[in-house]
C-alpha cells in the first residue's frame, strides 16, 4: 500500500522488489480464471478428491469404530488440519512438482537468467487456485470437528490451533522444496520423493499411534508430519498421547517446521549445485 502511494507521487521510481513476483502471480491468476469452464471443472474435481479422501477415513472408522484410540469425530480434526495445511502448501508451492519437466525442457535455465533468487522465482511462478476447494474441505472438517468434540477452550488452545496451521503449512511447503532439490540429481526422482510428499500427507491425516516403529521415526521425526496434525489434535482434545508422542510435543510444531525448512533448503542448495543443465 505504502509503496503504491509512493509510486503515485514519484511515477518514475523503479518497481520494488516484490513487483516482479506480484506481476507474475497476478498474470497466472488471470490466466487461470480466463478459461472459466476449465477453472470450474478443476475446482470441482479438486474438491471431489478432498471429499473422497474424507470418505475413506469415514469408511475406515465405520468398520473399526476406534483407531489408535481415536473416534471418527476426533480423527476428523486430525484429517482437517492435515488436509488444510497440505492443500494450502499445494496451492502455493505444489508446482515445484513440475521441476523434472522444467529441467527436461530447459525452462529452468530461463529462471537462472533473471535477477531473483531461483527458489523464490519458482515458488511464485504459478499458483494453483483450483486447490482452494480442497482447502475449503479441510477447513470445513476442522470447523465441524471443533463443534462436535467437547473442547475446553482457553487462549492457549486458540494460539495452539493457529500455530499448528501455520507450522503445518511451512512443513509441507518445505517438504515440496526438499523433493524439488532431490530431482536435480536423481533421475526419475519423483517416484522416490512422492512417497514422502504424498505419503507424508496421508500419514499426517492418520493417528500416528497405529504406525509401526520405523514409520513413527520417519514421519514423527525425520519428516515430522505427525506433528502437523495428530499431536496438536491430542492436545486440543486433552487426550493422552501414545508412547513416544507426549502431548507437550504439540508446542514443538515450530521446531518441526524449522527443521523441515532447513532440511528442505539444504537439499535444494545441494540439488542446484548439481544441476547438469537441461535440454539441448
Amino acid at each position: 500500500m505504502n509503496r503504491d502511494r509512493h509510486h503515485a507521487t514519484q511515477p518514475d521510481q523503479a518497481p520494488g522488489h516484490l513487483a516482479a513476483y506480484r506481476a507474475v502471480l497476478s498474470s497466472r491468476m488471470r490466466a487461470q480464471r480466463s478459461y472459466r469452464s476449465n477453472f470450474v471443472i478443476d475446482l470441482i474435481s479438486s474438491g471431489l478428491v478432498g471429499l473422497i479422501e474424507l470418505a475413506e477415513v469415514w469408511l475406515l472408522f465405520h468398520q473399526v469404530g476406534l483407531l489408535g484410540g481415536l473416534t471418527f469425530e476426533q480423527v476428523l480434526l486430525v484429517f482437517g488440519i492435515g488436509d488444510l495445511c497440505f492443500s494450502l502448501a499445494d496451492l502455493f508451492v505444489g508446482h515445484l512438482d513440475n521441476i523434472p519437466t522444467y529441467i527436461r525442457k530447459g525452462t529452468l535455465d530461463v529462471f537462472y537468467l533473471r535477477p531473483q533468487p531461483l527458489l523464490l522465482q519458482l515458488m511464485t511462478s504459478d499458483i494453483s487456485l483450483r486447490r482452494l476447494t480442497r482447502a475449503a474441505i479441510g477447513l470445513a472438517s476442522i470447523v465441524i470437528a471443533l463443534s462436535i468434540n467437547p473442547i475446553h477452550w482457553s487462549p492457549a488452545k486458540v494460539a495452539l490451533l493457529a500455530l499448528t496451521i501455520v507450522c503445518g503449512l511451512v512443513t509441507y511447503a518445505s517438504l515440496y522444496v526438499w523433493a524439488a532439490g532431490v530431482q536435480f540429481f536423481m533421475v526419475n526422482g519423483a517416484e522416490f520423493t512422492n512417497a514422502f510428499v504424498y505419503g507424508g500427507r496421508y500419514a499426517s491425516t492418520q493417528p500416528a499411534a497405529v504406525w509401526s516403529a520405523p514409520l513413527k521415526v520417519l514421519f514423527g521425526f525425520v519428516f515430522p508430519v505427525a506433528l502437523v496434525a495428530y499431536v496438536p489434535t491430542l492436545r486440543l482434545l486433552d487426550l493422552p498421547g501414545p508412547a513416544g508422542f507426549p502431548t507437550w510435543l504439540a508446542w514443538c510444531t515450530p521446531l518441526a517446521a524449522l527443521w523441515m525448512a532447513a532440511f528442505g533448503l539444504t537439499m535444494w542448495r545441494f540439488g542446484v549445485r548439481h544441476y547438469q543443465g537441461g535440454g539441448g
Partner: protein
Amino acid sequence: MDSVVETHGLTREFTRRGKGAKLLTRSALRAVDDLSITIAPGDSVGYIGANGAGKSTTIKMLVGILVPTSGTVRTCGLDPLKQRRELAARVGVVFGQRSQLWWDLPVRESFEILSAIHRLPPSRSRARTDELVDRLELGEFLATPVRQLSLGQRMRAEVAAALLHQPQLVILDEPTIGLDVLSKQRLREFLIQERATHGTTLLLTTHDMGDIERLCDRVLVVDHGRVVHDGDLDGLARAAGAGRTLVVDLTGPTADLGGIPHTAHLGSEVDGARQRLGFDSERTTAAAVLAAVSERAEVRDLSIEEPDIEDVVRRIYHARR
C-alpha cells in the same frame, strides 16, 4: 573497461551412468576442455562447432547456470555463480529452443512482467519497449498471445524480451534456427543496429553462415570442447585452406579448364558449359583466374562463391585428426 568475457582453463565434465548391467559404472565426458578465451567490449563473436562440441555448455557456464568442473570464468567482471543476480542485469540470453515469454499472455504483457523483473523505471521501460517494438517490427502482434505467434514472430519477441533491460552482453544460442529468409534478415539487421547504437557485445552460436558473415568480426571454432581457431572470418577460411570458388558460364561446351595457376578445377556441368574453379585468394585474384579462363573460352556470365562455414569447420576438424 576490462574484458566482457574472460575464461581460464574452463573445463566441464559430465558424468554418465552406464545402462543395464553397467549401471554402476561411470564415465566422464569432457564437454568443455581447458577453454581460455577473452572477449573485449563491443566485440561480435561467432562461436561455432559441430553439435556436441561444447557450445551450449560454455554459454551456461558464462551465465551461471552450470558450475565449472575446473577453471575460472568472469562475465562482465562478475563471478557468474556467486553474482548470478547482478550478472542477470547485465546479460541478455536468447536460447533458440526455449522461451522466456509466457505462452498464454499477450506479448505486451510478457514485456511488462519482464520490466518489473528487471526493475526498470516506467519511463525507461516504455522508451525501451517502444524502441524494440519499432526496430523488430513487433507492433502488429503485441496484443497476440505468444502461443499464437509464428516462429519468426516469436523469435523476434524473444530477442526483444532478452534485450529489454539493455544488457551490455547479448548471447544468442542458435537465434535464426528454423527462420525464413526474411525473418533472419530482420533479426540480423536489428542486431547490427543494436550494436551500433548501444555498443553491445555479441556472442552467438549458429549453424548459419549468413549469421557469421553479417554479424561477426571474430570467429571461435570449438571441437571437443577446445578452441581450434580464433580469428576473423577470412583468417578462418585461410586457416582451413578453403578458397573461394569462381563459377563461369561459357558460351558452349568446353573441355575442363585445368592447369590454371593456384586454381583447382572442381567440376563441370552441361558438358563443360558451366565450370567451377576453386582458387586460393592469397596467391591469385579472381581477375587473374578470369583472364586465364578468357584465353581459352568465351565467358558469358560468372559468380564467386564464398567458402561455406560448415565446410570450413569440417576441414579444420579433419586437419586436426
